[in-house]
């Protein structure tokens, strides 16, 4: 199970696919002050990434890929212009 949803902490491990999006969203809805652990996450599906950005749970361990980590951590200050 790549995504382990525990009490207050979701651990995303290995390759996390689109199938995890529904349970993760459900969990986020139910869990106030949610925390996520991406320390072992090698691949993160876009659907999961956008959930994390929408809800911004506290990331206790960033993903190992620094570029991805920076992307998830960056404040969305960029205006999207066409």
């Amino acid at each position, binding site marked *: 199970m790549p995504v382990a949803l525990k009490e207050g902490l979701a651990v995303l491990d290995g390759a996390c696919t689109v199938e995890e999006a529904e349970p993760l969203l459900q969990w986020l809805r139910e869990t106030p002050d949610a925390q996520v652990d991406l320390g072992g996450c090698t691949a993160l599906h*876009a*659907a999961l990434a956008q959930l994390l950005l*929408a809800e911004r749970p506290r990331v206790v361990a960033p993903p190992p890929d620094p570029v991805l980590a920076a992307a998830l951590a960056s404040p969305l200050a960029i205006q999207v212009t066409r």
Partner: protein
Amino acid sequence: MSGLANPLLQQFIPEARDLLEQAGRALLALERQPGAAAPMNELFRAMHTLKGTSGLFDMAPFTRLVHAAEDLLGAAQAGRLALTPALADLLLDTLDQLGLWVDALATTGALPADAAVAVEARAGRLRAPLGPQGAAPAEAAPDAALPGWLEALPQEARAALPRGRPLVALRYTPDEHCFFRGEDPLGLVRQVPGLCLLRLVPLAPWPPLDQLDPFRSTLAYLAVADAPVATVEELFRYVRDQAEIVALPVGWDAVAPVADTGAAETLRAVLAAQRRLIEAGGAEDPIADGRMAAARMVLSRVAAQAGWTDAALPEDAAGLLGAIAGFEARLDATPPPAPEAALPEAPRAAPTTLRVEQAKIDTLMNLIGELVVAKNALAWLARRAEQESLSVRELAREIKDRQALVSRIAEAMQGAVMAVRMLPVEQVFQRFPRLVRDIARRLDKQVELVLEGGETEADKTIVEALADPLVHMVRNSLDHGIEMPAERIAAGKPELGTIRLSAMAENEHVVIRVEDDGRGLDPARLRARVAEKGLMEPARAATLTDEEACQLIFLPGFSTAAEVSDLSGRGVGMDVVRSTIERVGGRLTLASRKGEGTRFEIILPLSMAVTRLMTIACGERLFGVPMGLVAETVRVPRERLRRVGDREAFVLRERLVPVLRLARLLDLPDAEAMPDEEAILVVQVNGQRLGLVVGAFREVMEAIVRPLDGVLAGLPGFGGTTLLGDGRVLLVLDLPELMR
């Protein structure tokens, strides 16, 4: 990159050369008649076509440079900008650069590695005259624009990107149903090699969590990668319409690197101001913390600006002062930008193509058809001879008939191939308007170049061999011949000097003249000069007629310019020019009148491929001498050969002709028995009439002389080889070299 295999590129190269040439011509015409519409349109069209076709290939710097030039021309065409000589220089320089790149494409199939760097500075200089308004639309053009989001990135993020390398910027906006097709946009973006920046941006404000649909894609992906554009395009080939991929040339982030001394000076001033800010104020300073914080913030900006992302900034005053010192040291260590290095000379001899009229090829094709028929007739004849239905006499007659037929076809083919190799002299002439313009501008002289008879045709080898000697002679005329405008006016001449380059066909020869109306040669100075340089005894120099004195410039080691200028004095004297021309079987003569001008005349054979050779014997061996050099053949009784010092000479029609012995020149043994009569070949070599004692004269033949190659290459004294009728190899003498 195996660009050379691309047939489209093969077509592009000659086309690009043509367009560049066309543009160069139009530009020069435009400079003579500013505001003329026709050359302007031609120039614009050439650049526009070049931009369009270059876009087919993976050579963004090339396209970018053409585009910048086109923008400049667009402004000039619309009358917003005057085409000044300085601007023309810039454009000509750009054309040169493009030409060099085309040469690189022709040899390696790719642009040189530094092209992306070179294009930045050049495009910048081309855009500069347009001013900010002019530059704006150019920047908005699709192939040159930086994506807006890049500019909106925070300074820290931009500063963290690798410098000095071309990058790729990607903006990928997948459609919202992409998850249902099994796509993972984030996974796709993360496959981009060399990914160095990634930002995920929501396309719309996030809805409340309970309305969020997890299976709808709502993000745009912005990325910068250190990867080839082609690779990124390949990755996104299935969603190409949703991805915006832009190549970022080196130095795209103009603010970041401390690129010039100006920026470095600004940084120094800023650093000095921070030092004063930190050091200001006494011990009891209520706003000390504020000052430190302000200085620290400025210093962090300085670091970001200069790209020193590794610099750590302490909190306290002492630490900040240390950081300032460190930054100043870094500024000192950054070398000022090197002045743009001179362009390396383009390597010559990329494979050349020859454009041939269809009709000439058709003629060849027909002749091949005839040759095949003639060949078949020989097989038929052989069969008849086998069946012994022919007498020997009949057979001989039949063979002669066939031989006559083959011989006719061979001659016709020779003619047809010659015709293919004929090029108009224009090919060489067309480089001169530019050359003359550039040099005249450099020397502040006013010169008009007149080209005549460019349509005259000559063999490709001859036309190509002409280029260097002509360049040298024209340079000489510009440098030494044409006077400064003031001097011309004082001499009662028009201010504008004229250099006339003309070509015409005369029987089997092409005559090319380089004439100027400059100051001409001064026989008195020439005499003084050869005496001074020890090239000739003063007494002998004094006896020369004025006309003969002018010929002194052909002496090896002669140079009239008191100082060797960078134009004429390239270590190449007129002697080399003359021997270059003689090597291809031509002659160079000179006529000059002090104060009126100088005229060089080159007489070249129309075609080189077939040379008439005189065969001569020397002992057992046979040698060939090009007929072009042979003035006459004489037999001279031994007693008429006189010794003059260590030389021999004889009198021919009241002129003393020095004599050399071929056997000595070639280190061959002398003939054992001294003949009563010497066979002397009188030749015209290096502008001098000389006698060459040979063993015997043999027949004159027509031959195709092949240059020496392989182990024989570079063998001095021999110009090439050909085959004799009996299969033996005939060495052809290079008399100008041998008798030097």
